[in-house]
């Protein structure tokens, strides 16, 4: 029904898809599998007309098609439900389904009865009942998803793409979704199902296509494969040598002891210890609770429970400033939104939380000292820029990240939390940042590194906490820090419910 051949895509000089094939038949659920950044989302954006392929062909029912935009793909019968829903929270399900395609009466008024009828019919086809009169914001996540699916079906979609639909659902809701998917399959709809949870794929899917680093790896029937083979296909064998050597011996002294953290009520309870001079990796899929756990420790995420000891002393941080006062700093995952003040210069960004260092007469900033310290800090991390007064938004991603690092190195911290330290950064800058991280731990400081890039987790971490479903499912060290073990825990691990 849907046939993609040799799809390639480049953004500027960076090629993200290197010739991907995908064939989806009517009446099958086809899994699209790959690590974060393997190219799944890009591929689906091409299928739905949001992006245009640089090369390759798309065939629908054997006919070659090019989609100029989203509407053209809808026209061809392709519906897509994104991870982030595109529903208007204050409108009800019917209004959302017919948004911008409202049925009208001859007078030009909304034909509410016709729309309601049609909505009810489509939802009936899915076998679900949803209250039609309340704003969708009041529906559960699963119900909202059904509204999205119904919206796609109301547009006569015969090919349905579900981008990680189960990521935020409870087990019961997942079961309900699967019932709906089976019903659609019975009706001959072709479904592309993206999920990181292997057990789900074995439950619902017929065939699987695996991508790795933007390349096509294989398509096979679910019946012919197993977890180990899939993980191996996803991870592959890679050679990475840009990582500095790990220290042979890490002392057992614990600087940060997170005795228990529970992100949501009734969620899993986790604990971990950070040792002096180590890099502790936080691995797991997006949404597995890695970032939230780190933020919860600093009081920037409202966790149900969180008990932390710093150097043996019980602490309660209400905001990141409290963490900073005890030598704990955070380099957030989104530089632009959480890390940098984009209207500030490099100098102002580096000294943002460092004013204690250069005071004059207690109240005032010693501008000369600030300038000198900034120049030093910039030299230490090798920021390439016009000068300390250059605006931050004129820098490349790698240099922006170095500025954030400089801000924290300039400070008296002993624990730094790096959230996705090398996202969107070129290879050369990555190696420099890795070296800086090791320099920092060599001084007896410690790092928690949250990363979605497995090679990075493996190459940098002395120990790794693997997250799934809001908690830590395993902590691995030594020889167990390899992609197979980590991926297996991250995709199939069971969280223990202590509460």
């Amino acid at each position, binding site marked *: 029904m849907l046939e993609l051949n040799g799809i390639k895509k480049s953004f500027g000089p960076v090629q993200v898809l290197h010739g991907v094939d995908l064939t989806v038949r009517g009446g099958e659920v086809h899994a699209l599998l790959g690590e974060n950044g393997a190219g799944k989302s890009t591929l689906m954006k091409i299928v739905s007309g949001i992006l245009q392929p640089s090369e390759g062909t798309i065939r629908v029912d054997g006919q070659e098609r090019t989609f100029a935009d989203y509407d053209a793909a809808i026209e061809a019968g392709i519906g897509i439900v994104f991870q982030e829903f595109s529903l208007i929270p204050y409108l009800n399900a019917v209004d959302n389904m017919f948004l911008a395609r409202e049925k009208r009466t001859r007078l030009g008024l909304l034909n509410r009865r016709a729309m309601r009828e049609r909505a009810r019919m489509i939802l009936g086809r899915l076998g679900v009942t949803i209250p039609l009169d309340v704003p969708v914001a009041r529906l559960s996540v699963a119900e909202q998803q059904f509204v999205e699916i119904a919206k796609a079906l109301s547009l006569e979609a015969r090919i349905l793409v579900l981008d990680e639909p189960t990521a935020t659902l409870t087990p019961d809701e997942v079961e309900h979704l699967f019932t709906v998917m089976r019903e659609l399959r019975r009706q001959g709809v072709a479904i592309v199902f993206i999920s990181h949870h292997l057990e789900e794929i074995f439950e619902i899917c017929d065939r699987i296509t695996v991508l790795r680093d933007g390349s096509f790896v294989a398509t096979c029937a679910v019946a012919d494969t197993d977890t180990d083979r899939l993980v191996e296909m996803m991870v592959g064998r890679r050679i990475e040598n840009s990582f500095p050597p790990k220290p042979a011996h890490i002392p057992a002294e614990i600087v940060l002891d997170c005795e228990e953290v529970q992100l949501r009520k009734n969620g899993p309870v986790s604990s971990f210890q950070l040792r002096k001079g180590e890099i502790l990796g936080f691995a797991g899929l997006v949404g597995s609770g890695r970032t939230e756990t780190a933020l919860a420790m600093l009081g920037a995420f409202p966790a149900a429970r969180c008990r932390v000891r710093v150097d043996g002393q019980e602490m309660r941080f209400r905001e*990141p400033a409290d963490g900073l006062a005890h030598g704990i700093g955070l380099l957030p995952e989104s530089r632009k939104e959480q890390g*940098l003040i*984009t209207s500030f210069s490099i100098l102002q960004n580096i000294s*943002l939380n460092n004013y*204690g260092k250069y005071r004059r007469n207690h109240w005032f*900033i010693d501008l000369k000292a600030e300038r000198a310290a900034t*120049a030093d800090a910039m030299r230490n991390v090798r920021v390439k820029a016009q000068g300390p007064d250059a605006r931050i938004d004129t820098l490349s991603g790698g240099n922006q990240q170095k500025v954030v690092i400089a801000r924290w190195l300039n400070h008296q911290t002993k624990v730094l939390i790096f959230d996705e330290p090398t996202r969107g950064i070129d290879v050369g800058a990555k190696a420099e940042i890795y070296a800086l991280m090791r320099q920092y731990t060599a001084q007896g400081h410690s790092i928690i590194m949250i990363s979605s890039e497995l090679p990075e987790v493996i190459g940098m971490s002395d120990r790794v906490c693997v997250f799934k479903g809001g908690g830590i499912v395993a902590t691995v060290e030594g020889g167990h820090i390899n992609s197979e073990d980590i991926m297996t825990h991250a995709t199939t691990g069971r969280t223990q419910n202590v509460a």
Partner: protein
Amino acid sequence: MSHDATVERRFDARRLLHSPLALPLIGLIVVSVLMGFASDNFFSVSNIFNVLRQVSIVAILAVGMTFVILTGGIDLSVGAVMALAGTIAAGLMVNFGMPGWVGLLAGLGVGVVLGVFNGFLVAWGRMPAIIVTLATMGIARGLGLIYSGGYPISGIPSWISWFGVGRIGIVPVPVIAMVIVYALAWVLLQRTAFGRHVYAIGGNELAAKLSGVKTQRVKLAVYAISGVTAAIAALILTGRLMSGQPNAGVGFELDAIAAVVLGGTAIAGGRGLILGTLIGAILLGILNNGLNLMGINPYMQDVIKGLIILLAIYIGREWR
């Protein structure tokens, strides 16, 4: 690297043109020249001091407003807080026979208390500034009217008039007060960590918070500063009118906001200079003064001022 820095620091016409002050300054010069042609009297020393004295109250209100707007907030209560501070101060002096300085301190206290009230609700109550300060505006105005019964309270010690109409040499006292307030604000914004944190919050509050800036405290402080500048403005107003006027300052918050925005400060926060606000306030004052000197109908004056503000913002938008 340090070599680059010195090169960049050197005087450079292009740099000046790209400074956020360039546009307000050009506006000020253009309007002054126009007014100079329209009226012989405009460039006389006495008229210049007259204009500055007239703008002093709004200009001082605009200082606190600049702090608030730089963090991305707004303070609609300044006019009403000023009126209440003046009314309470006069009431204590007249009705309770307290010495003048006690009344003045009480007026200052009113400003601080209401500013902290606003700041607390915005920072810890997480309520939108525009609603909080709108409510405070109503509360302050109402309290002043209740306390005074709606009538001006006169009969305050005569030395207080010095703050409103006195002079040191040829310079009016309100103008000196205005200069001092602006100088303090400049130091606070440009030379202290607090000032940088104000800009940081307006630029990216989340990033500032995650970096360890105590964003709630800073927000509380900017509203408190706005309350203090409202109280200082009240002192000058009370001295000029020689009475506490519960109905004074209606609409002054809008003039103060106009001054800040004309001065080149981004209404969303994060960018702007206190000197720009001073220029903006003077620009507004010159318009008022000049239109008066030209004998233009006061209703028409409001229309003209509104159009000029729109024009200025439009040009400023294209400028960047």
